[in-house]
């Protein structure tokens, strides 16, 4: 903690820049929220990664007693979670999104359950429909918080559907033994139930109109934001970028959405899909291995590619390292990590 206030510059990717005064004891996010900057954030406790930014000048550290879910490699690249970061003198942060991204403020909404469908041994597809009078615009890749009916708990899930599908919202949820959401989904959830949501949240979303190849690596239900992004790319005007989707599950009985992926391959000629299971046996068209190693294996990867990663922390760390070794810039790698409570 510094004893005097500091000047902190915040730069959005579209060139819009703001200067903040951060008082002693304040985090950068506290000051930015007080100044009403369009910054993305959600948990304010160092776990959700929505407020991720890159420190490019000066020094800033995690406030004493707080923790962040950033990987060591991410910290080393200057990544910081602004909600737990205090400046050590004047400094400057860059954000990976434009100044318009944060203008869609999170809202509270209610939705009906349209369908609860078990799509793999441990995955449920939950289709919701926003109730009359509610709307929730979002960017493909962002997530919502869902209140678990009958409890005080909330859980975060990425939309698998696109904004064009609203008022329908599709979520892919991993069933964890003993999880409160899992318990509701498996034992009680049924069509016409009403659930409360809030959102959208997150800085993990599709950067629009990028012509460079897209690499998407998804572990398990990390497929959800990728489905939303792929469907959005398909509907975007102009020549479509090449998209590699590498989707991995632990074993054959955990695989899901293969028909849905097949349809996207039919509809989007530039989509190239690889599906892996960590442990065999593997059905036709699926390899045994991890979804990271298959990228750049026997193929040339354009170093200007942009990458989207969603899955457990171990997969993200491995993917980041692998992609940087293939020449990708850390600035072009966007990641969404499953948080511990993602049940």
């Amino acid at each position, binding site marked *: 903690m510094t004893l005097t206030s500091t000047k902190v510059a915040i730069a959005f990717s579209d060139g819009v820049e703001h200067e903040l005064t951060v008082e002693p004891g304040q985090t950068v996010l506290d000051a930015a929220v007080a100044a009403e900057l369009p910054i993305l954030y959600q948990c304010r406790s160092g776990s959700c990664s929505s407020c991720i930014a890159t420190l490019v000048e000066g020094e800033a550290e995690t406030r004493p007693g707080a923790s962040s879910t950033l990987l060591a490699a991410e910290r080393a690249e200057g990544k910081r979670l602004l909600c737990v970061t205090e400046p050590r003198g004047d400094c400057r942060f860059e954000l990976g999104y434009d100044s318009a991204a944060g203008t869609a403020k999170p809202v509270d909404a*209610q939705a*009906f359950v349209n369908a609860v469908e078990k799509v793999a041994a441990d995955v449920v597809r939950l289709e919701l*429909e926003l*109730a*009359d*009078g*509610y709307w929730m615009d979002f960017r493909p890749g962002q997530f919502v918080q869902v209140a678990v009916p009958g409890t005080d708990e909330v859980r975060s899930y990425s939309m698998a559907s696109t904004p064009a599908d609203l*008022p329908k919202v599709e979520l892919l949820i991993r069933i964890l033994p003993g999880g409160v959401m899992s318990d509701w989904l498996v034992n009680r959830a049924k069509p*016409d139930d*009403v659930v409360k949501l809030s959102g959208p949240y997150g800085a993990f979303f599709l950067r629009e109109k990028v012509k460079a190849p897209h690499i998407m690596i998804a572990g398990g239900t990390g497929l959800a934001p990728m489905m939303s992004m792929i469907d959005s790319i*398909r*509907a975007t*005007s*102009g*020549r479509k970028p090449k998209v590699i989707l590498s989707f991995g599950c632990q074993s054959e009985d955990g695989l899901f959405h293969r028909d849905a992926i097949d*349809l996207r391959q*039919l*509809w*989007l*000629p530039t989509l190239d899909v690889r599906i892996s299971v960590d442990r065999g046996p593997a059905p036709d068209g699926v390899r045994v291995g991890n979804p990271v190693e298959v990228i750049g294996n026997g193929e040339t990867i354009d170093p200007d590619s942009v990458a989207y990663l969603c899955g457990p922390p171990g997969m993200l760390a491995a993917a980041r390292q692998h992609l940087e070794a293939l020449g990708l810039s850390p600035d072009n790698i966007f990641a969404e990590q499953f948080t511990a409570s993602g049940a």
Partner: protein
Amino acid sequence: MSESTPVRRRTIVNKHEISDKRMNDQKTQSQYQPYKDAAWGFINHWYPALFSEELPDQHVEGIQICGVPILLRRSNGRIYAVKDQCVHRGVRLSAKPTCFNETSIACWYHGFNFDLETGVLNNIVANPDSTLIGTTGITTYPVEEVGGMIFVFVREDDFPLDDVPPLHHDLPVRFPESGERFPHPLWPSAPSILDEGAVALGMHRTGQSNWRIACENGFDNAHILVHKDNTIVHALNWVLPLGILPTSDDAITLIEDEDGPKGQMQWLFTDRWKPVLENKDLGLKIENVNGRFYRTSVVLPGVLMVENWPEEHVVQYEWYVPITDDMYEYWEVLVRVCKTDEDRKKFKYRFDHVYKQLCLEGFNDCDLYAREAMEEFYADGTGWDNEQLVETDISPVTWRKLTSRWNRGIAKPGKGVTNATKTSSIRMRRLAEGKAPGYFVEKIDDLNKH
């Protein structure tokens, strides 16, 4: 919304029963969902806009394609195409063409003046120092003129000009270069509108049905029943089958070349398709004797080619250009390579006195009314779910899947454009005046008569 407000379901949309006996089961339908979504057409494609002779020098014409209002002007030795909707308050510039120089067009209402090359708002007649000038404009559309036809690349406002493909990506495959891949031992190489000396003669008119229904008619091999009694068939004693059935899995070949059109070729008059000449139970038999071999193919965005039709060395092209979700501009064009003025004159004579009456009108009129007869079943969207397709519908089903994959964009419903609102009073008045909704912008008569 407060906690106490009752939570209500949205209005429920009817679900229609789907039989699993049809060829187009649920899974097949999901494969061509993007096509089902394309009621207003596929955008970001090349479409024919006008015949060259319809746009003499200094002329301005307004049309609508895929719900996009487009103005064409020939001046300064070239053709310009821009969005026909003033940025100020949406007036159609072409309704009363007003041009103060060779390279711009002005809105006749409040004088907003647009550069035709860039679309930029570069002046306002009575407000030349406005801060709006130079900061906004109308979308421009790439134009190509070949063989007597003007083509426009109809794009979304944000489709980058750098991404515009060449015209030949949206035209049928060419011969003789495709002759090895698609042999045609029974007829000479079909000409192409892109061939040197190609002459395109034809007509275009508005059909009152969705463009997809029109397009599928052209290459549907069971539809030829509607032509059974046509004059030209019997005058020339042609063997036109009752229908043609696919007999093998390779009855249709997909055309998906990287540097070329995307479409499908049907191997008609080979052993992959069987002409049906008789139906004993119904007492039907084709008695005519003169073989009439032809072959149909179709490419995006809906361009039919009928090789060897209606005569040797002539090819028939058709387009079904979406205007709105319930109207299309039907283009029927015959192309022949004419090396000399003499050839041109002969082709024109034959067109004016034989083809036009017997083929483009007599024969194809049947197609036009057949499509319109189908329109109401599909108009509210339910027909696409409820239709029950059979074996010969392999042609439209293949087409639907192919276009779901290769289209460059699904046109959004037209907003603020002519005939998008079906019940507007001005549309009613025009109908009362006996003017059917159509393709062209109606020009304003000069009212200053006194």
